[in-house]
């Protein structure tokens, strides 16, 4: 599907979505409340058919925490980048997409482990790399490491 048509389709599903200009892939900032609804339609609708989630990244933009989703369709060969953001740094939470794309299960555990973003409805929301009793979330920008391992 062409970029313009894809944009129209996404704005039809989520009118509040904001497109970011001059990006490698068509990029949209989605309000976190509407994200799961959009993701479900992107996966299920035949003319969109985004069946491959090839990257899921947790990001700390300084004030905001968020997740970036890279989706592509193996049959129709179109790609989209979706972002969700939150300013809540205490208990950030988004809806899981692990039920749509199984590959998200590990990715989301990694984001929880390193950024402290929880995913509601995830089947196994545990840390993946660090110990369960690790304090803090190391990939956040405001994380300070007492024993000075990370600061080089």
């Amino acid at each position, binding site marked *: 599907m062409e970029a313009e048509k894809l944009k129209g389709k996404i704005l039809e599903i989520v009118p509040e979505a904001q497109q970011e200009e001059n990006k490698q892939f068509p990029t949209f900032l989605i309000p976190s409340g509407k994200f799961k609804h959009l993701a479900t339609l992107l996966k299920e609708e035949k003319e969109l058919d985004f*069946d491959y989630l090839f990257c899921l990244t947790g990001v700390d933009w300084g004030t905001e925490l968020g997740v970036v989703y890279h989706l592509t369709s*193996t049959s129709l060969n179109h790609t989209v980048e979706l972002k969700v953001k939150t300013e809540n740094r205490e208990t950030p939470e988004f809806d899981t997409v692990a039920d749509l794309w*199984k590959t998200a299960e590990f990715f989301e555990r*990694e984001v929880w482990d390193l950024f402290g973003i929880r995913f509601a409805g995830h089947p196994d929301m545990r840390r993946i790399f660090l110990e369960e009793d690790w304090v803090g979330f190391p990939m956040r920008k405001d994380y300070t490491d007492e024993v000075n391992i990370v600061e080089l």
Partner: protein
Amino acid sequence: MKEIINLPVHSIEEEEYHINMGPQHPSTHGVLRLVVTLQGETVKKVQPHCGYIHRGIEKMCEKDTYQQIIHLTDRMDYLSAHINNHAVCLLVEGALEVEVPERVKYIRTIIDELNRIASHQLWWCSFGMDLGGLTCFFYGLRDREHILDIFEESFGSRLLHSYYTPGGLMQDIHPNFQKRTKDFIKYFRKKIKDYDKLLSGNVIFENRSQGIGVMSKEDAINYGVSGPSGRASGWSCDIRKKYPYGVYDKAEFNEILRTDGDTYGRYMVRMDEMRESMKIIEQLIDNIPEGDYTAKMKPIIKLPAGEYYQRVESARGELGIYCISDGNKTPVRMKFRTPSFVNLGVLDKLSRDMKIADLVAIGASLDLVIPDIDR
């Protein structure tokens, strides 16, 4: 005596119990712990525990310049170090819109393919060893040594090369490089026939791999299992074909696809890929154009503010790098989408209701590299 015989016997077939496989286990090829839930000998669930070799490479990248990041990527998937380096170089060159000399593209493509063969050789020998054929291990390592010698001569190191830099190469290739590579191809074309004789057509091997851990194409896409493992399920996911980089568009080669999707299929895809890699090298090795080995680059690289995504086909699958830059010399966020991390996710699904010995075969066929999982 009679009393003992009449004691109620807890059948091992009825109760579920757990076994820790790893972190020190020969078939996990590194420090991966699998908590396996068993009923008798049948696998009911596999829970991977990662993080034993988690070094926080992504966090370190936020403090490092792009030239320094290259050296860290070597240490993720150390068996395809060149290919990891290539991904970072392509990312930086793409963001700066630098055109690298043709010579560099040819050399990089040849070395990537040599690296892929070396990686598949090590996979082959450890796969054989996991299934009880120790001869494979010696044969595979013997032949891999030839590639490592070529690497050592040209780049000064055998495993972690950091030979690519943004814009080009560290230094030009050694004068012997072309001749030795051609000699190696000639040598390996004979030896790969031994590999087939030893394993591919072996009845014991076929019985242990055919129909074991079958993955459908839908599952492969949904779990994101790319690379040879995905292609064994019929999913056309070769980055070299879909998003060509280097000079892959100038070489003729086939994307190996199979439809069986079992352990044997994944095995055969890698065997055929080694042949395709040799084909690519043969086409390119005599045509390396003359020229500079690097483009002119500034000593301090600053990427324009923005977001970049770059993918390459590593020996294990799709390696993606997502980079956010704010215009400084260090990135704000560097995410590595490593193939082994994603491929590990499907292990539980594939090994359920298989025997515990099959779990070893399935794990070996996915070709996991643990530092690539943990980063």
